[in-house]
């Protein structure tokens, strides 16, 4: 593919920008967002939040983080746009197919032993992995005795997840993932193509409860057999990660399963000793004490 040799600068501060001043401005903005709107992004991983803020600065036609602070405090629509930037995590169906294969082999047999199964998708974003899980449970004959709780801080993405419509141009990739994840049917059985969207079967969401939940400020709301939280904690700093791990620990039944993203690890958290690895490759952990 032809790429321009000198694409314009990436969103970010001008080269002469003072890094300490930038950090101060970012902290002030996040403090303002928390105190005025109640959304707490103060303990998010700095590098990523910084990128997202600068993208918003640029999209709004502004020059500095401080100008963005002023705009969002006085313009509710601008705050909505920023909230989407900060809280939307990109995901795909059957992301890391080998993970789902391992889940089928190692966790499904354990779930079969429960009369009723509760699974929490924490930070589900637009729901791709919730649908992936629903499909797998359906194929394993467990869906009818499962309730899936799909939560996210952002109501806009939850509404999209509820609709169950995903871009049609991703279906080839998702079909490949599905097959490699051990899918046993034809993936196209699960959706109907409509315009440029793929509408997934409503039967997949009949046992899904979508609700707004903030991992930073809200408490546990039930006890689960599986907590699924992949590539969400990477956006938090270490302190916040530990707080959320405490929440997960308190919300899991004994011998319940914690599923993290393939490049996430409990090794760098305070909760490593409370779990054992179930798989040598995938990030599947069992709560043991």
């Amino acid at each position, binding site marked *: 593919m032809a790429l321009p040799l000198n694409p314009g*600068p990436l969103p970010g501060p001008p080269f002469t920008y003072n890094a300490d001043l930038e950090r101060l401005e970012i902290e002030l903005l996040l403090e303002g967002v928390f105190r005025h709107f109640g959304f707490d992004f103060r303990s998010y991983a*700095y590098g990523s939040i910084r990128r997202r803020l600068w993208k918003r600065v640029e999209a709004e036609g502004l020059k500095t983080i401080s100008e963005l602070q002023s705009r969002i405090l006085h313009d509710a629509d601008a705050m909505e746009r920023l909230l989407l930037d900060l809280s939307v995590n990109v995901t795909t169906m059957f992301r890391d197919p080998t993970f789902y294969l391992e889940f089928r082999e190692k966790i499904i047999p354990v779930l079969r032993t429960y009369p009723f199964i509760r699974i929490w998708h924490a930070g589900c974003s637009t729901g791709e992995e919730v649908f992936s899980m629903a499909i797998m449970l359906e194929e394993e004959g467990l869906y009818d005795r499962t309730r899936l709780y799909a939560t996210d801080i952002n109501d806009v993405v939850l509404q999209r997840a509820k609709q169950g419509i995903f871009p049609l141009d991703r279906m080839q990739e998702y079909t490949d993932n599905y097959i490699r994840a051990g899918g046993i049917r034809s993936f196209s059985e699960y959706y109907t193509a409509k315009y440029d969207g793929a509408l997934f079967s409503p039967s997949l969401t009949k046992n899904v409860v979508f609700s707004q939940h903030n991992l930073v400020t809200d408490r546990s709301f039930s006890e689960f057999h599986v907590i699924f939280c992949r590539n969400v904690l990477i956006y938090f700093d270490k302190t916040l990660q530990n707080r959320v791990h405490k929440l997960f620990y308190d919300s899991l039944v004994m011998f319940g399963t914690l599923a993290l993203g393939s490049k*996430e690890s409990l090794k760098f958290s305070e909760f490593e000793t409370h779990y054992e690895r179930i798989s040598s490759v995938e990030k599947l952990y069992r709560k043991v004490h």
Partner: protein
Amino acid sequence: MSETNDVGYDLVVVGTSWGGLAALRALVNGLPKSFGMAVTLVQHRHKDSDELLRTLLQERSELEVCEIEDKMPVEQGRVYLAPPDYHTLVERGHFSLSTEAPVRFSRPSIDVAFLSAADSYAHRAVGVVLTGANSDGSNGLRRIFDRGGLALIQDPVTAESPTMPASAVRSVPRARVMPLPELIRYLAVLPTAPQERHI
């Protein structure tokens, strides 16, 4: 010419795409066991790549080569490989990963890694651009240079694919440009910053 600072360096970030495997194998092979900086390698590769690259690099390196996981600490004398299908960001003292959209078709993006390293390590960061068939890394290398860090580029004429280093030279005309073997020897003897001055 990119001048060396007087306190030394903590962190090297290397970006490469096409032709990168041979160049990275040569690079890690040329770093002595006593090498005092953390070395981060950002190589464009397929999202489903496995352990192979890490294994191939470990074969040639006296330093321990590991694939980065979220919040992994940045330690001296180790080689860190950016995982496929994530952006790698260097924070102060540890790595963070992100699944934000690819930047100019790339995830990992070399620019994203360079920009975060420049922000976290400023003049104690070294950015290195090697062979590659696109212009990723040019903006980020510029940022490392502007924050007082050291900018090194493989001489495009000697690179398997000259596009990426040539683009970096245009973006940072005062970077040090050298053929790969010379660049590796230069890197191997760069002074390491004393630990207690770690920012």
